């Protein structure tokens, strides 16, 4: 572990001018085989350790691997880091590192005007130009006019740097991403040791590979340092941050850790049943590694089975969790309806992706909110919580488990591709500070000598969780309507109406246990509210900041609980003459807010498989403000 603040980069550093920057957005792009995700990860960690605030966005190609060198095969990783707090990976890169023509072709359009483009010159040969679909060489034909271009023969230098290590040329070439990493690390004064330590850990047992990587990395670093090519390097000071121990974390990992934490804090075993699907598979992968935490993971034959298995585990006394994405949510609907009437604790994670149908499996979207609300036949209410940032997935998972266990109900957690894949620094919570959850398993009769499986806690309307093996609490429950209290099958008209209302009220009661909706309204006299949910949090806060910096006033609020809403939600949305709801869908939260509170909330929608851009939202806010 390193102390915070920038560990002085090598002294020689100072021989070149150093320019200070508040924030930088870098995009590493190359062929799927070029290891850009790893390069990005390493740069991210060095940056994190250095104390910058940061946000990342990996952007892989579609599921099937495209032929090397083609535009479909391009894999990119974007990071924004800053000396003040930032909330998104940035709309437009200031720096693009393009390892081949295809990468340049695919990514150039997003680079800011006048931005920096660093290309691996060696890759710009005819074959690659053809594959990328360049008629002429973009390095020559003016394509890059207006950009600050650095042509670096990365491959050849790398090969030269490692040749004495006796690797094949092919192996040698593979280290060129380390060269790029080294170069950019120098440009932004990233500490070398973090990366070298990591390489040590990773390749310690393969000295040759280790040496090659280090050699390439240093070659890149020194190339920046020594050649005339680069006149300036940049300094991005650490961002002020609450003191504490930090790590960089992705939404997928945070969600997995949150589930494990909830299991630990409730003393209930975690049982995760899932069927693989992009982008939810990561959760299965992460949890299946944590068997020594007592985590049981089961890869089911399909999503219906996964839901049924998790529900069975819940009946048996485990924390039953199942995770999937849109198509799998459709399939789980019937089983979730059963879970609603069985009133058992269960958590369903929906890592949303672009739909409808198979849609764009690797792209992000927030199109499943109304599905989560209404995607079951009959009156079948379920609580919904949504994470707002990668690290927040941790808290969201715990909150979902708290609700599920406390109220004996299935709970839906909404994440999305963007949250799952991107990462941010996370101040580690003190384990003992995490909430504890009391499963309150039933141990004996609850009505004199009788045990009534549907007799409720007057506070929470929770019914007893009486697990098999508990002496004398034998009971049978099922999907048919149940008599209030006894749980016996009932076709009685009034009973059905009563039970329908009880199931609805139970969910509403959860609002008693959740914090009010917080409004960020610095001067307290904004006339407009931007209300969000899910991964648009960062964009909304950043856009609002810009709007405020431009001298306007705007309030923001972000819903974590989508069902039930915090109790003050109606009051909050009615407080502002103008309400704007930005969503990565066609206006799903907007419908819920309008229908429930009758406020004329306007929708700002983006359905492109991409996160919202700050500049677009900023513009929209100003428009709605004046309009």
């Amino acid at each position, binding site marked *: 572990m*390193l102390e915070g603040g920038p560990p002085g980069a090598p002294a020689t550093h100072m021989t070149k001018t150093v320019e200070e920057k508040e924030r930088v957005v870098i995009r590493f792009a190359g062929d799927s085989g070029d290891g850009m995700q790893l390069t990005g990860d390493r740069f991210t960690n060095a940056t994190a350790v250095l104390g910058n605030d940061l946000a990342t966005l990996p952007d892989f190609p579609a599921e099937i691997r495209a032929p090397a060198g083609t535009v479909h095969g391009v894999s990119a990783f974007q990071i924004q880091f800053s000396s003040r707090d930032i909330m998104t990976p940035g709309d437009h890169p200031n720096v693009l590192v393009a390892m081949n023509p295809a990468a340049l072709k695919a990514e150039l359009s997003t680079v800011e005007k006048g931005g920096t483009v660093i290309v691996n010159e060696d890759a710009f040969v005819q074959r690659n130009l053809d594959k990328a679909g360049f008629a002429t060489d973009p390095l020559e034909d003016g394509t890059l006019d207006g950009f600050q271009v650095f042509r670096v023969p990365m491959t050849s230098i790398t090969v030269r740097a490692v040749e004495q290590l006796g690797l094949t040329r092919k192996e040698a070439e593979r280290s060129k991403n380390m060269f790029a990493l080294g170069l950019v690390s120098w440009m932004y004064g990233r500490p070398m040791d973090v990366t070298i330590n990591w390489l040590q850990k990773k390749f310690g047992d393969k000295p040759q590979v280790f040496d090659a990587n280090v050699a390439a990395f240093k070659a890149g670093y020194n190339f920046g340092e020594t050649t005339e090519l680069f006149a300036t390097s940049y300094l991005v000071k650490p961002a002020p941050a609450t003191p504490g121990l930090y790590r960089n974390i992705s939404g997928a990992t945070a969600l997995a850790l949150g589930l494990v934490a909830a299991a630990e804090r409730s003393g209930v075993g975690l049982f995760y049943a899932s069927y693989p699907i992009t982008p939810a598979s990561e959760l299965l992968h992460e949890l299946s590694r944590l068997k020594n*935490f007592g985590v049981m993971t089961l890869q089911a034959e399909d999503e219906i089975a996964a839901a049924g298995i998790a529900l069975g585990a819940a009946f048996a006394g485990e924390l039953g969790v199942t995770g999937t994405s849109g198509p799998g949510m459709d399939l789980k609907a019937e089983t979730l309806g059963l879970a609603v009437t069985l009133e058992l604790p269960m958590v369903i994670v929906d890592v949303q992706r672009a739909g409808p149908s198979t849609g764009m499996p690797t792209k992000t979207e927030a199109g499943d909110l109304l599905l989560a609300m209404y995607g079951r036949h009959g009156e079948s209410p379920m609580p919904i919580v949504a994470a707002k940032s990668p690290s927040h997935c941790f808290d969201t998972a715990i909150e979902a488990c708290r609700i599920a266990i406390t109220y004996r109900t299935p709970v839906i957690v909404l994440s999305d591709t963007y949250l799952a894949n991107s990462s941010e620094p996370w101040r580690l919570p003190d384990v003992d500070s995490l909430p504890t959850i009391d499963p309150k398993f039933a141990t004996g009769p609850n009505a004199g000598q009788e045990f009534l499986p549907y007799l409720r806690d007057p506070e929470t309307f929770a019914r007893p969780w009486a697990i098999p093996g508990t002496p004398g609490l034998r009971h049978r429950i099922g999907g048919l309507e149940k008599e209030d209290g006894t749980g016996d099958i009932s076709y009685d008209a009034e009973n059905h109406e009563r039970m329908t209302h009880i199931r609805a009220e139970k969910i509403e009661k959860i609002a008693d246990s959740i914090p009010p909706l917080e409004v960020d309204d610095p001067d307290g006299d904004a006339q407009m509210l931007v209300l969000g949910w899910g991964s648009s949090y960062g964009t909304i806060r950043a856009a609002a900041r810009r709007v405020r910096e431009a001298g306007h006033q705007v309030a923001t609020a972000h819903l974590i609980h989508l069902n039930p809403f915090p109790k003050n939600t109606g009051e909050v949305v009615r407080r502002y003459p103008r309400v704007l709801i930005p969503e990565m869908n066609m206006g799903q939260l907007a419908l819920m807010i309008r229908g429930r509170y009758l406020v004329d909330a306007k929708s700002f929608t983006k359905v492109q498989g991409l996160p919202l851009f700050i500049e677009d939202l900023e513009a929209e806010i100003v428009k709605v403000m004046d309009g």
Partner: protein
Amino acid sequence: MSDERMEVANGNGSAEAGAPVGTLSKKSFTSDQEVRWCPGCGDYAILATVQSFMPELGILPDDTVFVSGIGCSGRFTYYMDTYGVHGIHGRAPAIATGIATSRPDLSVWVVTGDGDGLSIGGNHLIHALRRNVNLKILLFNNQIYGLTKGQYSPTSEEGKVTKSTPFGSVDHPFNPIALALGAEATFVARTMDNDKQHLTSVLRQAAQHRGTAFVEIYQNCNVFNDGAFDLLREKPQGAHNQIRLEHGKPILFDEDTRCVAVGENGRLVVANVDEVSPDDIVVHDMHGRPSLAFALAHLSHGPNEPTCIGVFREVERPVYGEAMRAQVELATERLGRGDLGALLRSGDTWTVSASV
């Protein structure tokens, strides 16, 4: 605990308290719910036999779980004074898999029907069999959809005229035993609703089996498919047609006048005992590869010709839930019981000190 239990009336208004192991009786497994099958339904006989058999296992009702799907058969769960889940259509094997894999201490039984288990639930059934989850699956095969009032099922004979097939069904039915064997089942048996003794002995072997036991029970639906199995039970045909399998014994039937013998290419044939040499007579073997069991399953095309009942197959294989647990224990041994704090701190971390 048992005395505590004695004082406790149990769920769903069931009146009777659990009895300690020693004193378990049929009554200990009988819930207070009024049984609501049609008068004359074969399900009554199965229920009575199961309830009288359970005490023999010496497992408390409190440690027993019945899981069922939807169908007349699905109501079974409500009549057993155990823990129970009446799930949704076709999904009982999945729900039961969740229970059995997370709780090896429980005795978990699945009750399903030919529609519930083989039509909508076919996928969960074959995967449960493949995995060898610790479940005892009782499939009540009445060759009809009873609860929905008489449509044909995946086990109905071809040409079946029902509400949904007024001109006769055109699908070829499943042979549940063959399907189970094709799905790598480790225990496969067939028995009859009203043959208390045979049903009991099959249940006993199923209960002893470690892993998934698949038991097809021919069950009469006297309302929508009456007499479907008469040729296997009524005198005299029953005697002629029932081939009772017993491990290690030559396969003889029809008062030992007929047998199952090995024909050319290893094919099995039904023959008259006096027409084949004794060593061509097949000796039933539940173990080893499933080919013999499969051949026996295909001796007849339906319950109207010589048909095998009894245990077709029984083999040892790792039990799914146990193997999962073993990994958890192994991992815990190797890596030590996970520490949440350490887990959170894993990977590169850095400290921001107040000074900054």
